[in-house]
């Protein structure tokens, strides 16, 4: 009996350790990034790192300013959301309110498939098609903020679609029926009752999509142009925080390498803030928002 108790206790401790692993990993990631990135700030003031756009890590008098990459990240992400949010809302509303069961199932599995396509494949697609489309429509080289944003929009669409649909379906039936019973049309019910009621969920989904877009690396790397300069308009070449890390990582040493970890810290901070906004302020967990996949 005692041996069994010990066994039970040991198993519970093991399971607990496994559950602890995620937190430990998050703590480790934070600690290691900080440990490797912060030494840069002994040489370069934090404010200069964040608010200077002089990125010349290999120059005689090296400059480590990542302002242009921060702006690049937000420019690309903002543009992507500008495209993806209206389209995602429309498809989400269509799935939740307008479609019949069969077409909804078809669209849902198509969206799921696209969510599963690796980002490097989207990158190839971007080079072959998006850059050409962007070149014909808007001029320029075709490799720049606009192309990167189009690719990111396609990649964030599945998140926004499924979050919108799940949030709309989670609204109690009574709300919709009450509105219809009062004589409102279906469209009035959608715009004045359902969407406002699902607002917090949809907003959380958009923020979630934003987090994904800021952290996306391969696809933007392949179509963004990757010039370490201030983004010059919508067509100009752009380098984001993620691109900066992956481009220089293969050859950086010394302070240069440290500055890449510091770039990672900044990116990580943005992501953490976005995640915490979703989880704490909106009181929704990411798992609730993404819904149950595959049903």
């Amino acid at each position, binding site marked *: 009996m005692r041996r069994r108790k010990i066994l039970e206790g040991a198993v519970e401790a093991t399971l*607990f350790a496994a*559950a602890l692993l995620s937190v430990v990993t998050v703590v480790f990631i934070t600690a290691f990034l900080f440990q490797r990135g912060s030494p840069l700030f002994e040489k370069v003031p934090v404010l200069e790192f964040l608010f200077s756009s002089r990125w010349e890590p290999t120059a005689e008098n090296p400059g480590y300013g990542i302002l242009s990459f921060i702006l690049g990240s937000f420019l690309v992400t903002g543009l992507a959301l500008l495209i993806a949010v209206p389209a995602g809302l429309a498809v989400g509303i269509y799935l939740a309110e307008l479609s019949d069961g069969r077409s909804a199932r078809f669209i849902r599995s198509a969206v799921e498939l696209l969510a599963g396509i690796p980002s490097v494949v989207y990158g190839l697609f971007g080079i072959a098609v998006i850059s050409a489309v962007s070149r014909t429509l808007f001029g320029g080289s075709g490799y720049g903020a606009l192309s990167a944003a189009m690719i990111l929009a396609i990649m964030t669409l599945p998140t926004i679609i499924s979050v919108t649909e799940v949030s709309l379906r989670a609204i109690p039936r009574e709300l919709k029926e009450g509105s219809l019973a009062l004589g409102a049309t279906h469209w009035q019910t959608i715009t004045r009752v359902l969407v406002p009621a699902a607002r917090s969920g949809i907003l959380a989904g958009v923020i979630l999509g934003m987090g994904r877009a800021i952290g996306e690396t391969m696809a933007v790397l392949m179509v963004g142009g990757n010039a370490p300069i201030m983004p010059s308009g919508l067509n100009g070449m752009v380098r984001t925080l993620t691109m900066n890390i992956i481009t220089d990582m293969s050859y950086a040493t010394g302070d240069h390498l440290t500055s890449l970890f510091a770039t990672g810290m900044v990116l990580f901070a943005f992501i953490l803030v976005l995640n915490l906004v979703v989880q704490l302020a909106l009181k929704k967990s990411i798992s609730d928002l993404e819904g149950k996949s595959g049903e």
Partner: protein
Amino acid sequence: MNDTSATRSVGTRSVGTRSAGTRHRAAIGSQAVAFTAIRGLSILTIAVLGLILGFILYKGLRYSNIDRSAYLPYAEDAPDGLVVAVNSGRAPGALDWGVLYGMFTDEYIDWAKIDGSDDDLTPIAIDPATPEGARAEAFLFGTEEAGGYPAWGGLVQTASTSAAALAAVAETPGAVAIVPEAAARGAPGVMTLPLRRLVLAVNPEVAEFVDDSYIEDLSGRDVMDLLSGRARNWKEFGGPDLAVAPVAPPEGSVLAAAVRSAGLEYPAGPGSPVPGGGLEYLAAIGGTSGAAGLAFAGDAAVAGLPAAMLTRRTSGWNLTIGYLLEAPRLSGRTGGISTIIANTFLMLLLTVAFAAPLGLAAAVYFVEYARQGPFVRALRLGTETLAGIPSIIFGLFGFLFFVNILGFGFGLLSGSLTLTLMILPTIIRTSEEALKSVPRAMREGSLALGATKLQTVARVVVPAAMPGILTGLILAVGRAVGETAALLFTMGSDYQLAKGLFSSARGLSAHVYLLFSEGISFDRAFSTAAVLVFVVLLFNFAAKRLIGRMNRSAAA
């Protein structure tokens, strides 16, 4: 119009009904517009998404490129009675004149850029002092009277007779020789490659830059137009303002015969044949302003005439069985992706071996053991946060922790461990859902029969939740296949089969990226991407089937 007046006449009788009626009608109208817009936008979005998927798969299967080349597509089997002899183990296909010339002048050292194989190139020349050798030399470098001079490369080996050259070719896989057709006929172990050597030679003035513009690449139709006189001025092709002067090769010459067999008949009229031999013909092109005429590439080069660039469309199968089954060579320039597929599956196996027990254990803890409280909330917050971290941060962490601090180096183990951390939140979440869906009654029944909590969990709850857990696992692995950024810093990029846990290995997604970024081959990147997408689809499909079976058994 009638409708409006009717509404108005009703309205005079009852103000309230009128305003409610029109407003309702307007609302219905705007609803119709809005719904049409939403339907349209949805269909558009889905169509775009479908097109993307179709495009990727199509580009993966077929390639279709527009090449530029100076040579007309017509290939001669035995130009001037000579043949290009190679080992019979080579892939058949026509050679461009420039490639043949380059083979004997040290421009090429192996076959990689010629036919994609990685044999070394061994050019063999027959001793130029013999009549056969002199004939081949004149063929390759031009005759002395035309102004040609031999420029044999240092790699070229000399054979005394054509029979000796053919014997060497039969022995050496990468050998090439130019021998008389009669000698090569029936020689064992040897095959001949047809040669493309017809070009459109133009007067040097035509090929000059004018205001930064240069004569465009010409299509086959353009060539016909130029030769027949339908095209009147070079301006039409972006060239200088010169009248087109087509020149026809002398009647009865080898060139005229080749042109005729290429199917390019000079129409009677403008392009009057130049009397005399081939030299006069080339001199006529060189001396006439705006002149253009077909010529053999070697003769045109010796005469100092530029050749117009032509476009040539090539297409074929991109993804073949051979591509899947061969090992990559020369950084993926040639060969296939068999080792890369194997590496990918090794990586996934390792990842599952780590992630499945850990994720399941964490999920069991959350569902069966954890008591609600701030501590467990913090644990959950940690899991959710982990789910939102982008892969490049995982890459940095894996590089620091697994590669450097733990000293695993770039390899399968570091890569799999990094992937494990990435997919852990997904596995925990889906396993939790599966465990929660097991009815309470089953747990209570087991406990009532005297089983301990551990026995209940291990023998009742987990087995009952297994299909759901597996589904989550498959979905998570499907996502892990496509991971690139994190693996570039942790798994290395060796394209050979991984020899062990610490051996650097390249997966499919990294191969796609490296084929593109190292500028090796866009087509190959696409065919690898198609394989990758296919693997992802396979995982998704497997998960779907499992869910379907689960629902059916739940209903039964």
